[in-house]
């Protein structure tokens, strides 16, 4: 009430300046030393973050003597266990990206920034870096003290150890990223002998510094000022989205807990202003100010508040996952009444359908035939007309195949030259053949005639591909 009166006194414009006084922006001037507390969401976060172990370990998995999952950029192949995807089928990657993006949107619209809080590499790596810091330098109070303390052998020891471990993780991160794209064991061999290719060194150094600086130094500043997804996700929530929320109806007015006097005075709000929620926050926000940019919805403040509520004998959930509707006392809508989520799910299903279709229709061979355009046709000395075709055959299997070429359509009496014996289609890469088709000049009835080529494996007739193109001739 006092504030209201003061606002009116000061006039509307000045109110902006007044709000500015209490409006704090985390610009990274002060390092945030968050307290680590056990709890339900802490456990969830540990579990979800440990999924990143796959990032470190999966490249070492072997399958039939080769790396099980390998994005072989140099040879333009993607190996996934028995499956090999070539660049021609890379359109599925765009569907996969669409799927992941829509997955992110859908989850965000249901339960806000789940990705940020539980999965994001920035959050995860920062969390591990902070955990190491906690183990070496002690709890937040000790760390703050150490920050301001003058240099001493003890401080030097702690700092050196901490940074050394950070750097080791940063290096391992760079290595682990690289070995998704080249053979893992070969990479280690090259690395230990210091003979990586230039691009290998550049990637490693970029990831080393990227990890070390982003997770070690910048931390929550990345989420607040650098990451576009933080902002994008921020605007994807609406009043139906559940997010970590402080129940101000229950908590206010907040005030210190006075033992004994509580019953007599009748303390109105449940919030005892203990600041535990602020102290555990990895981005340093005060959730009691409402939903805000800095909140990555990791749920750690829920753990902190619940533990306090248990201690003072109040029900849990003063800070809880709740929608704005719920907080405003509006009836909670059902999930199916959230059209935005349904649209996302629809797109996800469509993309998924596309990927499934693609994977089940990969085929074992593709054929493209490019007719020569200069000249379109050649008149031979016996008066016949010859066309030249460039065959591009892609054999997607893992063995070389002999293929026979046949043609249908075209011109009566045509002869194929260059297809007399079966042609070799190497595995895993495209090969091209030149094939001529010669037709008697008197049989040519129009300038352009469709012709259909078919290639078929000699030993395995199941492998076949067709392509329709044109036979060009002079005006009859």
């Amino acid at each position, binding site marked *: 009430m006092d504030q209201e009166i003061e606002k009116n006194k000061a006039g509307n414009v000045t109110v902006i300046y007044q709000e500015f006084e209490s409006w704090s922006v985390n610009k990274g001037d002060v390092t945030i030393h968050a307290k680590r507390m056990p709890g339900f969401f802490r456990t969830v976060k540990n579990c979800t973050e440990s999924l990143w172990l796959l990032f470190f370990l999966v490249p070492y998995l072997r399958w039939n003597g080769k790396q099980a999952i390998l994005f072989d950029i140099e040879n333009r192949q993607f190996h996934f266990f028995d499956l090999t995807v070539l660049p021609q089928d890379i359109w599925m990657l765009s569907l996969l990206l669409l799927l992941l993006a829509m997955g992110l949107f859908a989850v965000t619209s249901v339960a806000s920034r789940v990705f940020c809080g539980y999965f994001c590499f920035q959050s995860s790596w920062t969390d591990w870096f902070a955990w190491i810091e906690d183990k070496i330098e002690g709890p937040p109070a000790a760390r703050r003290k150490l920050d301001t303390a003058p240099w001493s052998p003890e401080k030097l020891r702690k700092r050196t150890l901490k940074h050394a471990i950070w750097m080791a993780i940063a290096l391992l991160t760079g290595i682990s990223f690289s070995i998704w794209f080249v053979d893992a064991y070969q990479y280690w061999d090259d690395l230990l002998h210091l003979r990586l290719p230039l691009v290998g060194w550049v990637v490693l150094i970029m990831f080393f510094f990227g990890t070390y600086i982003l997770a070690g130094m910048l931390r929550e500043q990345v989420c607040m000022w650098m990451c576009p997804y933080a902002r994008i996700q921020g605007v994807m929530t609406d009043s139906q989205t559940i997010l970590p929320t402080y129940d101000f109806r229950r908590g206010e007015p907040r005030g210190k807990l006075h033992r004994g006097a509580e019953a007599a005075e009748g303390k109105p709000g449940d919030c005892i202003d203990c600041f535990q929620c602020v102290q555990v926050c990895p981005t340093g926000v005060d959730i009691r100010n409402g939903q805000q940019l800095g909140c990555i919805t990791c749920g750690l403040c829920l753990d902190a508040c619940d533990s306090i509520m248990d201690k003072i004998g109040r029900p849990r959930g003063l800070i809880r996952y709740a929608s704005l509707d719920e907080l405003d006392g509006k009836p909670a809508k059902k999930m199916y009444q959230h059209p935005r989520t349904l649209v996302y799910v629809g797109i996800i299903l469509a993309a998924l359908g596309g990927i499934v279709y693609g994977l089940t229709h990969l085929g074992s061979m593709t054929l493209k035939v490019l007719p020569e355009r200069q000249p379109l046709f050649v008149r*031979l000395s016996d008066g016949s007309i010859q066309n030249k075709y460039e065959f591009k055959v892609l054999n997607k299997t893992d063995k070389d195949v002999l293929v026979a070429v046949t043609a249908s359509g075209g011109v009566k009496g045509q002869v194929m*030259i260059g297809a007399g014996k079966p042609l070799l289609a190497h595995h895993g890469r495209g090969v091209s053949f030149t094939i001529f088709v*010669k037709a008697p000049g008197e049989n040519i009835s129009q300038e352009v005639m469709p012709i259909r080529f078919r290639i078929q494996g000699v030993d395995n007739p199941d492998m076949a591909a067709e392509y329709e193109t044109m036979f060009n001739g002079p005006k009859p």
Partner: protein
Amino acid sequence: MSEKHDVSGVPTTGHVWDGDLADFTNQPPKWWMLGLAASAVWVVVYWLYYPSIPVSTMGEHFKGFGGWTAIKEMEADKGAVDAVRGKFEAKLKDMTPAAILADSELTEYVKRSGKVLFGDNCAACHGQNGVGVHDKDGLFAPILNDDDWLYGGKIDNIHESIAGGRQSMMPAQKDLLSAAEIDTLANAVAKGQPLSTPLFAGKGCIACHGEDGKGMEAVGSANLTDKVWRFDSSVEGIKRTITYGVNSGDPMGRVAVMPSFKEAGKLSDAEIKKLAVYVYKFGGGKADAPAASVEAPGNKSGK
């Protein structure tokens, strides 16, 4: 000018609008300022490393401490290309054109890399991809992708044509034959049946074009019975060829000169070999022996 705002206590720029509107002078985040400083340092380093000052003094310009030049970069890129081509080039240097043709990998290399060579040296007369070039008098230079060859279509014939050049001669007949005789001959040739008139043998055409009219590769005389024409297929065009000859010195005569690329010294032996294979692979090349033929059996003679 800086003063503190009366309510917030934060320094402002000092400008006040509407009595109480002012701009705070809050610092941007520190990491942002560090980034700004780092980019300033980067600019200096970049300017010193590269030749970046666009002013010359005393005819000299600042060359940068990195020693970078566009030419060097181009040479390095060329080096990368040459490294890839090197192993093929080294191999085909000592091979005969026929041996290159027999090696499918080398043939593929020549087909892919020969385009520039052909474009630079041959396409001016023979057209891109050897489609032939026509001028107002008819076909200026022969089409290279058909199966009709004046001097033979085997790989060695083609190689010889490029290396040594070709120039034949057909004398002008204007003083030897009457207009009526020329007309008769031209009409017979236009139909592809030169033997249909006794003039063909009687007037000595067979000396060069052969008793069957199918030409002789040794002298580069045209096959008069096939469907491919060296200059012009019209009766008028044929008349002109007969009347004024080819390379006869007559101002109205036709000119057909293939220069020697070996003599010109512009192309290396390896490049001439590559061109021979490249031209052979246009589709008209003829196999040496009946073996693995790329060409159906048919017309064997040149024009």
